[in-house]
């Protein structure tokens, strides 16, 4: 199918973009790898697309002291090949090859993925596991939102009308920190059946699952468990995965335990 018609604007400055986004029926276009399919299938029919890919201040990946700041427009391919990410955010580097396919990774952006908040997407779980901070900019200024407050439901986030996700800040993983990223999919690059982004620092674990609820979720009870067996048992308190077309809830829960077992020795 073909998209319904819309107007298009490509602002060169953030203030101009925010002005345009305040118009009724306006929608942000970044990499477009989720938006354009939904336009083609006419699941979405905005009046105006505001293409933000001309906003240079939303680009770049840099290390400031112990914080890695990733501009919202960094593509998955850019995140994957970034030396800063490989060195300071190995969890994220491990996640990137699981995101869709090479041609899609060349266009899709980290900001787009987080702002869309697909429950089966990789980045939201990474942001939760690494306790990232999301930077939202609106006409009244900038707001910093913890990842644990950002994902509020199925494709729902704490972003307000007219606000734009401009950057994501991660604490750099330290030398002794451990992390593991695991995902089960029927075919490489497909949406996850279930996945786990796991992080451990100073004996404290953060286990973030995706494809396991209406959004990426932490498994706090399993994270606190003393050994693997009690962690697997505790997962039953943390997760009640909804069934999908191919997998019953019990199957997903079983697979969540399988991933936990695979990650456990790496944490």
């Amino acid at each position, binding site marked *: 199918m073909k998209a319904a018609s819309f107007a298009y604007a490509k602002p060169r400055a953030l203030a101009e973009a925010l002005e345009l986004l305040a118009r009724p029926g306006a929608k942000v276009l970044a990499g477009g790898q989720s938006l*354009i399919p939904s336009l083609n299938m006419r699941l979405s029919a905005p009046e105006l697309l505001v293409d933000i890919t001309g906003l240079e201040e939303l680009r770049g990946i840099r290390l400031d002291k112990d914080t890695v700041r990733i501009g919202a427009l960094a593509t998955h391919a850019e995140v994957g090949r970034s030396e800063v990410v490989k060195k300071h955010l190995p969890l994220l580097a491990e996640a990137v090859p699981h995101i869709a396919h090479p041609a899609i990774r060349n266009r899709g952006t980290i900001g787009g993925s987080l702002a869309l908040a697909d429950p089966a997407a990789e980045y939201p779980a990474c942001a939760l596991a690494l306790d990232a901070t999301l930077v939202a900019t609106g006409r009244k200024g900038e707001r910093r939102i913890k990842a644990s407050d950002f994902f509020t439901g199925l494709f729902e986030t704490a972003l307000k009308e007219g606000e734009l996700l401009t950057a994501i800040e991660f604490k750099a993983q330290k030398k002794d920190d451990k992390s593991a990223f695991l995902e089960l999919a029927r075919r490489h690059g497909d949406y996850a059946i279930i996945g786990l982004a796991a992080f451990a620092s100073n004996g404290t674990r953060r286990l973030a699952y995706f494809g396991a609820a209406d959004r990426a979720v932490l498994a706090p009870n399993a994270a606190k468990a003393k050994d693997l067996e009690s962690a697997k048992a505790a997962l039953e308190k943390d997760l009640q995965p909804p069934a999908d077309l191919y997998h019953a809830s019990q199957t997903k829960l079983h697979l969540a335990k399988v991933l936990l077992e695979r990650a456990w020795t790496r944490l």
Partner: protein
Amino acid sequence: MDETLDTTLNVNGTQVTRRIAARMNLVDFLRDELDLTGSHVGCEHGVCGACTVRVDGEIVRGCLMLAVQANGCKVETIEGLSDSGELKKLQKAFHDKNALQCGFCTPGMLLAAQDLLKHNPKPDREQIRAHLSGNYCRCTGYQAIVDAIEEVVHGKG
């Protein structure tokens, strides 16, 4: 802020300017405006890979990019890459190994395969399969396609 925009891009080395609807996908632009019908339209939502083209040197889905977003970009299609000889070895290997039947997926397969070889000249079968995971073939299956790419990797193509 219009629904039609003047768009200038370089396609296979030729500068083209057209006034086009914002909603037009890049692959429809190439096919319908420029008659470059080698890039195919399959699923139109980024799943099948038949519309794969190169924008500024990187492969993208032609159905998941608006033509207006390619304003100022360098676009290369199967036609340009065939003429330049860049895909010669892969094309010969696909032919030798019977890696196509109807040919609908082939342009996308060739672009994805060339992209793999550009980033990783010595991939193993597993890496070839992973890189092509976003390209569907409905006739031959994938064995012969992977064989053909392997042939080029081993210098036999």
